[in-house]
């Protein structure tokens, strides 16, 4: 064995020794938790009162995992003597998270800001069929939706 071969081995051992002194980087997940970043696409939350059953999200979804049903409802007129208004009421809004690809197209196309991303991620189920979540469950996740982050220097504000 030549000398440089031996020094190569010891150099490698030096690297592992220094790493040993640096301390642990592993997070023991169920016992200690790391907060995911604010923008993380964890789960889609639904603000029910904003939804107008326009079906844009269901149509744009690449794997068709959103199920929407609605009906028309008469509401009293805004002004005295006016015509009664017709509004769309939401009966069913289900997202099948077993199919969802977490692409975020539905959140982006929603014209009335009814869908939001939340970094919440702890909603695994033992049975795959239980991953179909209804609008009550999606509404509960609204509480975990964070405010949008301030942008980096040089960024233009969105109109």
């Amino acid at each position, binding site marked *: 064995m030549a000398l440089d071969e031996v020094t190569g081995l010891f150099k490698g051992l030096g*690297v592992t020794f220094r790493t040993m002194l640096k301390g642990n980087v592993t997070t023991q997940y169920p016992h200690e938790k790391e907060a995911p970043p604010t923008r*993380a696409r964890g789960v889609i939350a639904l603000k029910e009162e904003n939804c107008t059953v326009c079906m844009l999200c269901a149509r744009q979804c690449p794997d068709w995992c959103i199920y929407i049903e609605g009906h028309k409802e008469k509401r009293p007129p805004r002004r005295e003597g006016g015509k009664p208004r017709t509004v769309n009421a939401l009966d069913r809004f289900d997202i099948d998270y077993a199919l969802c690809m977490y*692409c975020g197209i539905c959140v982006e196309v929603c014209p009335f800001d009814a869908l939001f991303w939340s970094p919440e991620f702890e909603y695994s189920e033992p049975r795959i069929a239980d991953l179909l979540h209804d609008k009550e469950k999606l509404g509960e996740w609204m509480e975990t939706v964070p405010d949008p982050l301030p942008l980096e220097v*040089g*960024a233009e504000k969105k109109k």
Partner: protein
Amino acid sequence: MTAVTDRQRLAYVNTQASEARVNVELQTEDMTLNLGPQHPATHGTLRVVAKLDGEQVVDADVVCGYMHRGYEKLTEVRTYPQVTTLINRIDWLSSFANEVPFILAAEKLMEIEAPPRAQYIRTLFFEMARIANIGLFLGEMALQVGALTPAFYAFRDREFVLNQIEAATGGRFHPNYDRLGGLKDDLPKGWIAETQAVMKRIREFCDELEGLVAGNIIFERRCRGVGVIPAEIGKAFGVSGANIRASGVDWDLRRDEASPLVWKDLDWKVWTHPDGDSFARYWVRLQEVRESTFMVDQMLEGLPAGSIQAKVPRIIKVPAGEAWVHTENPLGEMGFYIVSQGGLGPFRCKIRSASFNNVSVLPWLLKGTYVPDIITILASLYFILGDIDR
């Protein structure tokens, strides 16, 4: 010994030598070794059928397609924004780099160009995807040779890069961050400073691995002179990326191809190695990761201010025509050939992925090697199964 048997022996040597260098002292029967489709060294479902004579490979055949998902067909029934989220999954370790050539090809057809800030951020994430992808290779190649520690180091430091990608795009592995004419969102506040710290850390990681793996005598003896791809053979098989640069071919699409991305504004160099063996492929990739960190630093400093989205219609229809864009992805040349007929989605989309051509050299390369070297050669070629089968 009579003359007849001598002649017989000579005839045997001639037939065998034409196929491979074969041990002729014992007339052994060929054995077929099935490597995969579930072998851990193929990190996916690649099957290599090797015909062995003793310890030597006489003939090898690569069987792929176990993970074929039909992306070229799937793109035909989806709109352009939906396609980006699909093609993230082609090469899942550097997802962002897959989106870029597709979006550039669609933008070429629409004759729009993203603003300079968007192009900078695109190139930035392209290089970060390269660091995340090849950084993992640096540890994983050592794992295939038998060293366990570098793999853990690679996973540890790749995590920092992925955290930065997730903080800005929202997706850890599948960013889906590119849009036609721009990007989904601008960078969050404080991201640049954090990324600069991460890049420093990645350079330290490269130094660590240079000491731990590249300078290690056991690693060198397993890799030097093993799996040599001569430049001519590599070119003939369409090998691209770091694999062909390790054979001494100075070919890099980031530099050679005119592109709206900003590599031309940066100060960097293309690394090559004359040997063409497994060690050369490792060494070239190691230098590339380090070079990429410097490129990211330059882009963070020179990030122009302004908008990140060009004006596009709300419902995107791409005019009829054909466009071909290829870029230098972490695994090699990746290209998209889009045929549009003016609809919401592509009419036909041909995807040229790097790994498919890179593994096609394997039957040539594995002939005459020994069984333990199959694994190091497979590891050093560095393919992603999703990239082979699409």
